[in-house]
């Protein structure tokens, strides 16, 4: 009995001690004032920087990996005094550990971050990445990058606002978009010309339905949002959607075109234009169905179909213009936000590399690897890359209207969950477009209040 008491006393003491130990430390996270670090004097001279080795961590595999490898080789060839050591990591792995890696003395000098508050915002706020304003001036990035793309990497230095202020990351000369893919053979068989407006698209879908085809290959079990966000961009101006996403509380989700988009999606669902039983079809199966010819159209993120060289040209891409007016607004962002670590010892060389990733050479290398180029118009795309040509045309169309809008889930950390849930409820008749819009507004308001 006494033994028991002693043992339990020991354990109790240990517990109390550990609890005290933990509670005695103050609030979690770093203490002290937060101020963004920015280099004071910058130089664009790389050749005379001496022997420099930079560490790069990125999440690019496949053809994206080939692209960055070719970029590193070309940069090292241009500047023999520079060596770039690349580490490739899985996307989830890198985005979830980047804050720790960047605070490590042996961590990367350059890295790919995810945009939005969760990733880039947190890194900038934690003073882990450099403010790039001086480099932007030195290299003239402000005239190179469309403002709707630049905004995706901007934060005010009090870190209360995203989408304006200082530049904390750069895009690269590549972009990924949301738009519509179509099955070329099916469309030819149905005798339909590729639609160029939403009205034409709806007429084409109806015709496909009448002919017994599945108009839109779709699965809403785990990733239903591409169609909603693709449509949203047709209904509101780029500024409105951008401002909504970046937390301007004077803009509501309804003004940002979400209500019309939800109504249209609901209408299409009720008309039976989506794959039957889409509520039980997951994302991968939906993509596979479309590639198998079960469906004429599909709303999709570019680069997600995983087309082989052989499949190039069997599926093509459409970027629809706005429903009213003339311009084209589309969801599009660089595939990563390139950051320079605050502790990087050669920020000038690192910035030169970022500049190189936005160069015409980078855009050309992108097209050569089957990826959509951005920032430069005079890129040649091989005729064999028939799908890429239509995708690049879409990007050029948005670029011409300066109509890029960011991924809607950058609005708040929980926005993607909210949209997924609301869309599934919409299809099951458990919510209305109005309620969906209200839920989105509420999600954002909660986040904005929390982050004050």
């Amino acid at each position, binding site marked *: 009995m006494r*033994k028991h008491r*002693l*043992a339990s006393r*020991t*354990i109790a003491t*240990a*517990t109390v001690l*550990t*609890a005290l*130990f*933990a*509670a005695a*430390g103050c*609030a*979690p*996270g*770093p*203490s002290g004032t*937060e101020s963004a670090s920015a280099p004071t004097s910058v130089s664009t001279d790389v050749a005379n920087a001496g022997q420099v080795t930079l560490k790069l961590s990125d999440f690019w595999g496949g053809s994206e990996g080939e692209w960055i490898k070719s970029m590193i080789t070309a940069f090292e060839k241009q500047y023999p005094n520079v060596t770039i050591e690349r580490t490739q990591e899985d996307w989830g792995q890198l985005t*979830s550990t980047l*804050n720790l890696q960047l605070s490590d003395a042996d961590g990367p000098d350059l890295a790919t971050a995810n945009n939005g508050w*969760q990733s880039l915002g*947190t*890194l900038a*706020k*934690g003073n882990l990445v450099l403010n790039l304003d001086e480099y932007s001036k030195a290299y003239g990035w402000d005239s190179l990058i469309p403002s709707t793309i630049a905004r995706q990497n901007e934060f005010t230095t009090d870190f209360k606002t995203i989408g304006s202020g200082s530049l904390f990351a750069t895009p690269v000369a590549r972009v990924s978009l949301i738009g519509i893919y179509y099955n070329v053979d099916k469309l030819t068989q149905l005798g339909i010309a590729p639609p160029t407006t939403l009205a034409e698209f709806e007429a084409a879908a109806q015709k496909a339905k009448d002919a017994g085809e599945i108009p839109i290959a779709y699965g*809403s*079990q*785990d990733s239903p949002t591409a169609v909603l966000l693709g449509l949203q961009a047709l209904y509101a101006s780029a500024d409105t959607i951008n401002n909504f996403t970046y937390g301007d509380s004077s803009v509501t989700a309804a003004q940002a075109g979400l209500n019309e988009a939800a109504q249209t999606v609901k209408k299409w669902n009720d008309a039976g234009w989506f794959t*039957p*039983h*889409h*509520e*039980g*079809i*997951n994302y991968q*199966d939906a993509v596979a169905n479309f590639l198998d010819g079960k469906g004429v159209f599909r709303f999709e993120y570019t680069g997600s179909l995983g087309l082989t060289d052989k499949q190039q040209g069997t599926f093509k891409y459409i970027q629809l213009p706005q429903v009213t007016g003339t311009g084209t607004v589309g969801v599009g962002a660089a595939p990563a936000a390139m950051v320079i670590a605050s502790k990087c010892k050669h920020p000038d060389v690192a910035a030169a590399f970022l500049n190189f990733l936005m160069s015409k050479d980078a855009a050309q290398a992108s097209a050569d690897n089957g990826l959509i180029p951005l920032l430069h118009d005079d890129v040649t795309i091989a005729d064999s890359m028939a799908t890429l040509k239509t995708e690049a045309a879409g990007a050029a169309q948005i670029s011409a209207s300066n109509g890029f809008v960011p991924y809607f889930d950058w609005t708040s*950390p*929980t926005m993607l*969950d909210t949209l*997924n*849930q*609301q869309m*599934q*409820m919409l299809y*099951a008749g*458990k919510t209305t477009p109005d309620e969906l819009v209200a839920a989105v507004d509420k999600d954002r308001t909660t986040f904005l209040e*929390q982050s004050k």
Partner: protein
Amino acid sequence: MSHLIARATLPGGGASQARRRANHNPRRRNRRIGLAFVAVPLVFYAVVVLVPLAQSFQYSFYNWDGVSRATWVGLGNYIQFFTDPVLQSTLSHVLVLIFFFSLLPIVLGLLSTALITRRRLAGMAGYRFVYFLPQVLTSVVVALVFKRIYSPDGALNALLRSVGLDALTRSWLGDFTWALPALGLIGTWATFGFCMVLFISGVSSIPTELYEAARVDGAGPVREFFAVTLPGLRPQIAVALTLTVTGALRTFDLVWVTTGGGPGTATLTPAVALYRAAFVNPQVGKAAAIGIVMALLCLVIALAIGRVAERD
């Protein structure tokens, strides 16, 4: 130098003192040796379990994104857990899962045990193996297999169509009404065999004299079950209840792989909500609060079941 020597001699002196004292009180000495043996694992346990537990407890009072400075919110995270309609619904989902993961397998396990142990059957080991198989499979594999079975073109719908029940076919995991029961039945399938094997081994430890006595007294199979088998299996039932109920409370992999909590939030469990808060959306404080509440619930349930099982 002399200082060092003095120090170096100290342990020896201490040891001899202890030895002398130990001669008077051997129990005390045993206790010390015991503690010395336990010290290393205890430190290890403190570092890997108690410290994180205390940290989680601390985090649960803050609003924290995991990187920048946290702000104190007091009981805010806990209040949110019990007032937020979505988080509240996760608790009712857990109740449904407890029925499917725990009560149903135990009832089925008892029933099959009663049937199997009545008579020696040829190939018993084979049956046991087949029913126990799900327990050996990795839960992710089980989840992926059932995802296929429940899909719109899956085996279940094919079966229904083949017998003319087309009206009943649906996307089982995409249906607001059916997704949770469909998930629950996966759990029933997975834990039923475990309960049965546990109960069969329990029955073998019930003295056969009791059965003989019951039969002499004229008890039928039903009476025999309630009078002898069921009371005899009390400890096994307690073990099965504890494991399956806490398993239901912790349900994560099955939901994450099959529905991710959807459609809507129809299959969201506290563990999935916790994972999202901790790793998908940076709300570490909220995640910690969910974790603490879940840990307490598991503890209370385990204690309660233990109490009931021991009472005679």
